[in-house]
């Protein structure tokens, strides 16, 4: 009976809007104003760009996160790190992205998606090279049975001498089916023109969902076509190549190893990629080397 009541309760998921346009970061004011760091120390342009993405699970322990990155043979050599689920609070000495970046000698671009308590929650790009043309995009809002949240994407050009590399960072909803996931992701992908690297936490869990409430773990387990498979099919049709396969876990939960984070390259060659099993978050970091 309780399950029946739950089904009635939750049959109200909806897509409330189509998201917003790509907005220049400088034009966004108020509580959701982005935070951008100064240009980093100048360095030689590499032949290969190492990009990583890591959901830092709120990023509260900035010292610990910075120390984990610095201690990792892989992530300590990353030129660009995309972070998701990172926050900022007025009582803290700067945004968490800025504090982590400063300890790593990187610049930063923090883009809040929503107000959280008396602060903000969002995504960030950390870079060892200067950043240009920072943009922010509100993604389509998926109205769920509970805990619906604003989601965003951010885009930036990494300055590598005369060249520019467009990088996009994304964090999608968790408790949504794959059709809504593609609907939420699409605006951030189709409006890109030219070569780009796109990464983030796509929350591509291996379930179909009963209206954002009940994960149908059984049937999806049998089919084997989890959301990561569908996501890769979508990106392949847009001529993006993924860094890691669907069988490589980026998060461990009871029973399942699931790939919910990844990096995708359009018109760039990924020469090496993998997962860095860092401590400090419920996610692991995905990294990729991209030939320039």
């Amino acid at each position: 009976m309780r399950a029946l009541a739950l089904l009635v309760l939750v049959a109200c998921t909806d897509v409330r809007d189509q998201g917003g346009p790509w907005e220049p970061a400088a034009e966004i004011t108020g509580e959701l104003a982005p935070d951008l760091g100064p240009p980093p120390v100048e360095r030689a342009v590499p032949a290969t760009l190492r990009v990583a993405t890591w959901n830092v699970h709120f990023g509260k322990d900035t010292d610990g996160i910075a120390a984990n990155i610095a201690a990792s043979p892989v992530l300590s050599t990353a030129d660009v790190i995309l972070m998701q689920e990172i926050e900022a609070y007025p009582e803290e000495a700067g945004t968490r992205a800025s504090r982590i970046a400063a300890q790593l000698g990187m610049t930063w671009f923090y883009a809040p998606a929503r107000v959280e308590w008396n602060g903000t929650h969002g995504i960030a790009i950390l870079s060892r090279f200067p950043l240009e043309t920072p943009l922010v995009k509100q993604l389509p809002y998926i109205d769920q049975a509970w805990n619906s949240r604003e989601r965003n994407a951010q885009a930036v050009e990494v300055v590598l001498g005369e060249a520019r590399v467009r990088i996009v960072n994304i964090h999608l909803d968790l408790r949504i089916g794959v059709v809504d996931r593609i609907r939420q992701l699409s605006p951030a992908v189709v409006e890109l023109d030219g070569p780009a690297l796109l990464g983030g936490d796509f929350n591509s869990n291996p379930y179909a969902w009963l209206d954002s409430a009940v994960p149908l773990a059984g049937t999806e387990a049998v089919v084997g076509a989890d959301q990561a498979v569908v996501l890769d099919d979508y990106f392949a049709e847009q001529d993006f190549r993924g860094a890691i396969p669907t069988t490589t876990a980026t998060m461990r939960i009871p029973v399942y190893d699931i790939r919910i984070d990844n990096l995708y390259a359009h018109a760039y060659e990924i020469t090496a990629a993998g997962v860095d099993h860092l401590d400090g978050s419920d996610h692991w970091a995905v990294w990729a080397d991209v030939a320039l």
Partner: protein
Amino acid sequence: MRWVLSSVLAASTAYAEPAVTATATPVEEPANVFYVELLGKAGAYGVGYERQITDRLSLGIAGSYADLRGQQVSTATPYVHARLLGRTHTLFTELGAVFVHTRTPSPVPEWEGMSDSGGGGFAALGWQHDWKHVLVRASGSVLVGEGRATPWLGVAIGVKR
């Protein structure tokens, strides 16, 4: 499939009651069960049918179709049901196969969508309560599929004919 039947028969034999012999009285209970299931072996829900073939064993099939905010999931689940202990409060086990077809239509113009089919197996252990013409069940199961195994729960209510 042979190992599935063997396992069920072995389990059934292991719990056989001493009084049961080759000349036991004929089965008096209705031989057919029609039921609906929530979150069971057939996915979000299931509609099933069972045919009793011996005092302890039944053959069954359950299926479902669901449109989950655009993603269409169809399932078919043939299985063997075996009563292990009890009469009105029954401990039972089920072993079977699960076939699933998923179609994901595209919500956006730049993608064609995709579909996929897969198969796997399941083993369940559950409790059943019987009235004269009605039964209710609750079961826990393990589904094994393409690269994954997962626990799952289900409840069902059925009629006996």
